[in-house]
């Protein structure tokens, strides 16, 4: 019972998209019409850690927290790429993860988009040139949106996801 008393006391903690997130709201609004046609405001994400330091993962976990609550946009994480519409790839692609990343991409049914999260995913960051690293994510699979930052904030990731959805209709013919 103490649990429910606490739930009641704390109340809703999800932050409404504040003035600072105007851009997100705008993007969200703009995207909604197009994305709805294809994904119908329901986006399933499969997260792929292609060799990140897990900094980005910590921020991605934040997306699901009560504060950011990505679920309110219909964005949720799934366990299998077969269920996914969007791949969220983090980290520079290591040699061990090159083929798994490719396989994950192949396993995801169309239409699908790829969002590469973090500086490493775009430039390999401090791991650039390492013997263990193959390259950036777009060297392996086509990437729709890069989200910069080391690590990027959850709000940035959310913005990236929404932007990627915006690109969906363009890529439809390419499947």
């Amino acid at each position, binding site marked *: 019972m103490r*649990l429910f008393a606490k*739930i009641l006391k704390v109340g809703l903690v999800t932050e409404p998209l504040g003035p600072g997130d105007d851009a997100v709201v705008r993007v969200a609004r703009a995207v909604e019409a197009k994305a709805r046609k294809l994904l119908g405001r329901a986006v399933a994400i499969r997260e792929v850690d292609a060799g990140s330091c897990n900094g980005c993962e910590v921020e991605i976990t934040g997306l699901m927290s009560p504060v950011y609550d990505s*679920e309110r946009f219909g964005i*949720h994480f799934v*366990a299998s790429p*077969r269920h996914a519409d969007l791949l969220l790839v983090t980290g520079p692609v290591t040699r061990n993860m090159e083929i798994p990343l490719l396989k994950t991409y192949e396993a995801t*049914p169309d*239409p699908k988009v790829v969002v590469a999260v973090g500086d490493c995913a775009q430039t390999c960051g401090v791991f650039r040139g390492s013997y263990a690293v193959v390259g950036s994510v777009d060297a392996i699979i086509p990437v729709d949106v890069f989200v910069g930052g080391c690590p990027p904030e959850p709000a940035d990731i959310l913005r990236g996801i929404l932007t990627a959805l915006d690109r969906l209709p363009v890529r439809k013919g390419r499947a």
Partner: protein
Amino acid sequence: MTGFLLEAAQVLLALALAPGLVGLIRWMKARLQNRRGAPVRQPYLELRKLFRKEVVLSTNASWIFRAAPFVVFASTVAVGFLVPLLAVPLPFDEVGDLLVVVYLLLLGTFFLALAGLDPGSAFGGMGSSREMTVAALAEPTLAVAIFALALGAGSTNLGQIVGRTMADPLAAVSPGHLLAFAALFIVMLAETGRLPVDNPATHLELTMIHEAMVLEYSGRYLALIEWAAALKLLIFFALLGNLFVPWGVAATLTPTALSLAVGALLVKLVVLAAAVAIFETRVAKLRLFRVPELLSASFVLALLAVTSSFLLR
């Protein structure tokens, strides 16, 4: 003729409400986690999206994998025709009784478990194995709870069970009835893959039961399976609601009685959804090997239900 129209209307209503029910539970749970949560209509959007996506099919899979979603969906919908949601007696009441309902659902589970094994992935096999374990262990409770219900009505026929409780309101608060309700509630949690038996929201393959079996499905097949799962939840809720608290179920086919029945059904579904949401917020998932303890507890409840019905007759 009106009877058959009613059947069709009932199944369409069930199909239409089922995703909303899942959405409602998710929304309530989100609120209990102090989140804003997805709107109740979210599962509809997800289903629509899945129907529009392509299917990626494992090259190892056989026709079983492709047939299973249809069998699962069809058997669950068939059950929707047999369970009295709005009115008794249904014209299809004679096609199947409570045992047929249980075994039709088992037919779906059987095919889904085979489909889990079909692509040869270890996750699928693990899911099938666990699902069948839970299903097998839930079976005695179901049967004995049916026995308890049949004892009162003198039949396993669903219409008669509902009619009998309606005719004798005191029976609804008899110990046999209450114990059987508790037993069936636990079995419902197990059969529909809710906490504490299975976590429908898990991302970790090793903790999965139902989700692990469908890990390989995508697109329209996945949509069928998800929809059937939602429908199964709704059917179990309706069974719990209408067999034990039958008031509101229309005994005549007048518009007033039917609209009242729809209202009563909605209220029952919302109450049960709230109960499940609160329960799921409160408990943690059990280890797989603790699940039998839960199920044997439910079995003892069912057995007590039968004995008390016997003795208090």
